[in-house]
């Protein structure tokens, strides 16, 4: 998923950089004071997720968890992913500093897009709806990122069929794993700290009824 240094042509790099700067700008503008620690935690999650490998195919794929970032942070996923990618480039030599703009846009934009679209369904009291929304956000972000990577390569000169086939094939297992992980993470957060999902009022109302029996049991124990 990380495009290495010296692969993309200058116009693609420049376009990626401009789009990423815009995204990071919007993300910082929309960032609330209360949300800063959460952005930091998810930037760390994104930073470390890349070390968890999914051994498949000719290439090496690893977790990205950009979908989870987008779902929980919205536009603030842009700065979080940018920081994560910068540190990965500097400390792990994944990708490269010149390709940082393109990589940031490729990973953050689908995450933000799907995050904002799927987020509204997380307030649903139906677990199936929540699960599907989380899966689409997690897996779909990888799918769209893969397509953006393929597009970046095509604009540089690689044939689309080859690039897209490779990128998509390599990321199918990652998509599934990320989708499932996102469901687990969302359900976990919903049980533990629903206000992170941004549906404080709704979930509290719904959860209050449901959790009242649970909490009483908990007190009893």
């Amino acid at each position, binding site marked *: *998923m*990380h*495009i*290495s240094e*010296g*692969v*993309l042509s200058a116009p693609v790099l420049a376009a990626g950089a401009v789009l990423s700067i815009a995204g990071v700008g919007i993300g910082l503008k929309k*960032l*609330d*004071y209360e949300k*800063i*620690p959460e*952005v*930091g935690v998810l*930037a*760390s999650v994104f*930073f*470390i997720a*890349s*070390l*968890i*490998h*999914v*051994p498949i195919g*000719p*290439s*090496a794929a*690893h977790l990205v968890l950009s979908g989870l970032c987008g779902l929980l942070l919205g536009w603030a996923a842009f700065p979080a992913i940018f*920081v*994560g990618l910068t*540190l*990965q480039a500097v*400390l*792990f*030599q*994944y990708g490269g500093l010149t*390709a940082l703009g393109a990589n940031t846009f490729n990973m953050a934009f689908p995450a933000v897009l799907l995050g904002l679209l799927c987020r509204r369904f997380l307030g649903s009291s139906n*677990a*199936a709806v929540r*699960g599907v929304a989380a899966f689409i956000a997690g897996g779909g972000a990888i799918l769209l990122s893969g397509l953006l*990577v*393929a597009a*970046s*390569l095509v604009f540089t000169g690689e044939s689309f069929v*080859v*690039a897209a086939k*490779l*990128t998509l094939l*390599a990321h199918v297992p990652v998509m599934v794993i990320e989708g499932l992980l996102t*469901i*687990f993470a969302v*359900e*976990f957060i*919903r*049980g*533990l700290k629903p206000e992170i999902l941004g549906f404080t009022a709704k979930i509290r109302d719904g959860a209050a009824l449901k*959790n009242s029996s*649970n909490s009483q049991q*908990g007190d009893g124990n």
Partner: protein
Amino acid sequence: MTSLIGISRNNASLPRCLLVACALLVLWCGAAAGHKVNVLAYVEGDQVVVEGYFSAKAKAMNCQVEILDAQGTKLYEGRTDAQGMCRLPMSALGKVSGDLKIVLHAGMGHQADYVLRASELAASAPAPPKGVDKKPVQEGSANRPESRAPDTPTSPSEPATVSSAMQTAGPGQTHSPLAPPIDVAALTKALEGAIDRKIEPLVRMLGQQQKMLMEQKDRGPSLSDIIGGVGWIIGIVGIAAYFRGRKRTRM
């Protein structure tokens, strides 16, 4: 989905389940390291060996290999096999002068390159010293330089670079043992051949050492890198909180 609902109802066991799941995931994947693609090339006998790998275990299989010369012209194009290796005879590259750049394309934007120094190429397959003759160095030439000495100056293809002193003294050398041996070109050539052969194991050993060092370096991020990165993020969060907090108190 039913199992999910079951888990989410039982809130107490959910964190535990997740922790176990995460631990399993990390353990399962922990063995693999290094996402970066690497390429390494060395000369083995009369073959150039190119090796591509993501980590010690994950070889870069069926990846495109390009060999460029110092000017950037493509000399060779091939693919790595199931072991991530690509072997080609030196002759496939034609006449090489200067360093070779080996580029490995692993697809999806993964690419790495390695520079094979001209000295490494020369050490294993000694090129004929320029200005003496066009024949490649023969196996035995270094062992009996004195027998070659008289031939060289009389050769019809004698280049102009050979010193004139050699031309006059060369033929008479074998007959008068008192005359100083001044067949400089032949001597140089013989010495170069002998030295090349002597230092070949050393060069190869150094190549192996370099390979080991590189593998060590590419073993993947160390714990200190990971902790350092998280530390950076905490620091950035602190800076962001400071500026946002200042803005908030002003308002």
